[in-house]
């Protein structure tokens, strides 16, 4: 069966999205999980470029993998202490 390079690239990138999304769910380390969630949307933005949607790709790259990751990291730093105390109270 003939598969063009473009289709192959798209499939590989989609596999990358799935893998990094899975990692984001599985990883116990919070920072690692956040980074792999960002990686998923980075892969997604490359897929958008390959599928000829540069407008969406720009938004995904800057908001999905940039700003969201950053905001999650800030949020983790803000809530770190709260998390442990609530666990102790249980």
């Amino acid at each position, binding site marked *: 069966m003939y598969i063009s390079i473009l289709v192959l690239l798209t499939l590989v990138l989609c596999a990358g999205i799935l893998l990094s999304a899975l990692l984001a769910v599985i990883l116990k380390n919070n920072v690692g999980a956040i980074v792999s969630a960002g990686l998923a949307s980075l892969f997604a933005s490359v897929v958008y470029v390959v599928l000829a949607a*540069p*407008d969406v790709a*720009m*938004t995904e790259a*800057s*908001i999905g993998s*940039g*700003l969201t990751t*950053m*905001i999650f990291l*800030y*949020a983790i*730093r*803000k*809530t*770190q*202490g*709260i998390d442990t105390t609530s666990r102790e109270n249980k």
Partner: protein
Amino acid sequence: MIKRIIIFIMLGLMAMIFFNLASNYVENESLLKLGRYYAEKGPQELGAPNLVTAVVVTYRGLDTLGEVTVLFISAAGVGLLLRRTRRKQNDEDLEKADRREERAGVHKPASEIVETATQLLLPMVILFGIYVFINGHLSPGGGFQGGAIIASGTMFLLLALPESHISRILIAVTESLSGFSYVVIGVLGVILAGGFLDNRILGLGEYGDLFSAGAIPLIYCFIGLKVGFELSAVLDRFRKDDTGPEKT
């Protein structure tokens, strides 16, 4: 146990839905009716080479206004939830407190590599964001994309120089002014042209020029400024007072 079973049933239903979608998928051979109308009439009516942004701003302008409103509400929500616990009467006092905090060096400094790279890249990133939203009607991108790129510039700045000061008043004034002007342009469309957010209140100009396509570049400038400053404000909110959770 019951919870698990429900989760599995839900997953099964989701799988069924997606399986149906995937198995019935047929690629469209031609454009649908509405799509064909946009593709044929859009360039003449709107005068913008980038049809995507033209449709987003004019035919679907009300949706874009809704999106901007959603973003505004979320930024306001972040501002409300992360408001300072210290009782400060007005913005100027807050600014003073911020400056004091910054002088005291509460935040950890970044490495030299990050700092130098940011000083080199930051002007370019901001300039690129402005380029993207000014050329929204010509090249891929538009107000949202440009604004998001500008906000990434702010993110760089906050990463490299955590002590840097972002004026809260400037953000508030720019954001409200651009949001207001956006709606004013929309209403002008009702008065002077065909309807709300009609871009033909200004001349269409030469097809493919920077100053063409009526009010589209103007609208995109306002959207870009609004989105950029809003997202920057959200980032700034998250940064402030992040020396750890309060001890209660």
